[in-house]
């Protein structure tokens, strides 16, 4: 009740506003026949209980997927799990609510006072990350509907060159940084806008969305999980968290015999080979190189901050207020009246130009204060990526790369070692 009070006051104020400004061109009739005004039916939204059922389903399917991937080691089970998630989170819940998009709700709530995050969105953000920290990316394996639809359509995996993979793997970092920047400046939800499969889940969307989704699925037949690998911004977080996972899926159920049968099993290039050949390089030399690369990290961070700070005014064009203000400015400069609907709406609203330009200024300021952090994040991730390329670790077994592995279980059948559970 206390929480709703401001809104009640707001509505009362609206009513007051109405009393003053209502266009009472025609007075309300007084019916002689005793006709009563009909009442409107206000269909209520989905009960909030359902959102918590979604959370329960999320937790349940994460537990089942973890069990299937780590304990039962059943690829078939994981596929059925994908089918379930695709059916429930995808087609039944129509792709909304999803953990991928919840990143934006969290950043919007963190950096803005007006918005309080729905509890379910916060849970959808944290729970998969917690599981990732404990058991690796099991969320990707069988719970995420976006991952599921790609997992099921990836029939003919083709390996792509390593440098292409490494290059494209940096795209999600940029995507994440921009998505957080845009959400926290209240500009737009980039991830939701370019969600590729939501149109397929709803069987109804703008055609551009459907084409994008269909193209990704077609590409995904050969280059498996293209969205997860080269776009998914939430995957970046899962990737980072999963690297520190306590337990993780293993290729072999027992001791690895280095038979090399699994070497080409992974379509995501996420299997780290064991080094049977010792590196001839001297340890001191590689240590020096490591230090050198390490010193480069702050350089990259500063460069990133500098770059994005200077890009901030152009990036702020995603904000509708900034776009409107710029349109008005060009209108003033050229003297040609704009035919945009936003401009017409602005002129009707009675807002003054000074107010609009001040608003634009404040949005750009927010971009300028947020963008350097995005740049630092990008610089540091780039630097760490470079370092990890140069590090050589000694391994006596084949094991999954904890960051890249989706725990999909494709490698299970390649391992000749079988253990009766």
């Amino acid at each position, binding site marked *: 009740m206390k929480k709703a009070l401001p809104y009640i006051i707001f509505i009362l104020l609206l009513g007051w506003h109405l009393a003053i400004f209502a266009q009472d061109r025609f007075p309300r009739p007084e019916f002689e026949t005793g006709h009563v005004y009909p009442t409107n039916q206000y269909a209520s939204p989905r009960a909030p209980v359902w959102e918590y059922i979604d959370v329960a389903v999320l937790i349940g399917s994460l537990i089942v997927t973890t069990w299937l991937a780590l304990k039962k080691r059943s690829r078939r089970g994981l596929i059925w799990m994908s089918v379930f998630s695709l059916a429930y989170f995808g087609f039944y819940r129509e792709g909304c609510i999803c953990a991928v998009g919840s990143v934006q709700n969290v950043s919007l709530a963190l950096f803005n006072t007006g918005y309080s995050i729905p*509890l379910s969105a916060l849970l959808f953000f944290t729970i998969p990350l917690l599981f990732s*920290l404990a058991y690796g990316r099991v969320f990707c394996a069988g719970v995420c509907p976006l991952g599921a639809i790609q997992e099921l359509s990836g029939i003919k995996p083709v390996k792509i060159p390593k440098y292409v993979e490494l290059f494209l793997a940096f795209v999600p970092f940029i995507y994440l940084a921009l998505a957080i920047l845009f959400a926290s400046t209240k500009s737009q939800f980039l991830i939701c806008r370019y969600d590729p499969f939501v149109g397929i889940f709803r069987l109804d969307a703008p055609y551009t969305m459907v084409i994008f989704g269909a193209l990704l699925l077609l590409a995904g037949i050969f280059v498996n999980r293209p969205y997860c690998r080269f776009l998914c911004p939430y995957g970046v977080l899962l990737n980072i968290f999963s690297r520190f996972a306590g337990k993780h899926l293993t290729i072999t159920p027992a001791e690895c015999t280095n038979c090399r049968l699994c070497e080409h099993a992974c379509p995501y290039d996420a299997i780290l080979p064991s080094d049977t050949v010792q590196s001839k390089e001297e340890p001191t030399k590689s240590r020096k190189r490591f230090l050198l690369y390490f010193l480069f990290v702050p350089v990259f961070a500063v460069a990133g901050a500098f770059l994005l700070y200077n890009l901030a005014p152009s990036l702020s064009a995603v904000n509708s207020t900034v776009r409107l203000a710029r349109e008005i400015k060009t209108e003033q400069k050229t003297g040609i009246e704009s035919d945009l609907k936003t401009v017409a709406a602005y002129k009707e609203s009675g807002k003054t130009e000074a107010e609009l330009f001040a608003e634009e200024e404040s949005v750009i300021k927010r971009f300028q204060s947020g963008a350097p952090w995005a740049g630092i994040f990008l610089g540091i991730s780039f630097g760490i990526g470079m370092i990890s390329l140069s590090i050589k670790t000694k391994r006596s077994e084949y094991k999954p790369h904890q960051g890249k592995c989706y725990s999909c279980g494709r490698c299970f059948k390649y391992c000749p070692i079988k253990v009766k559970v």
Partner: protein
Amino acid sequence: MNTEKNKYQSRRDFVRIAGKIIVAMPLVIIPALLVKKTNVKGYVWQIDPHKCTQCGQCKTNCVLTPSASKCMHAFRMCGYCDLCGGYLRQGAKTISTGAENQLCPTGAITRKFVEEPYFEYTINRDLCDGCAKCVKGCGDFGNGSLHMQIQQDICVNCNDCSIARTCPSNAISRIPASIAYLPKDK
């Protein structure tokens, strides 16, 4: 040799545990920061009819076809006019229910005689596609009792409402699900 290996092993373990703690921190901090800013009941999208400029983008920009945004009638504001700016096309030859005279492209408005000289207009929600032509007509020539509202049982409550993103007057915003509607006559 053995101790050497152990040293590396423990160092690696240390890095792993330290990393785990560092990475886990945001998972504690973010919910802690947001604990006061969480809303248990959730939000829905709704149009503020006083900001709406009847641009017609509700019809085309919703992810659903037909749009979840539809016309509603605030009966207590209506003048019950015979010559209704929301029902009749501009320049209609006669004031009648003939299809050629109707403004609504889908014929979603029914006109019913109440008493001389009053007529009641009701909207068939299933036929309305949210083009807002009648809302514009009513606002321009009448009391403005017809107004757009997002139908909460149809709306899929996208995280980023695609009408809100393109709404020229920023009339669509998140409101608490407990309120759900912002009708003109409440």
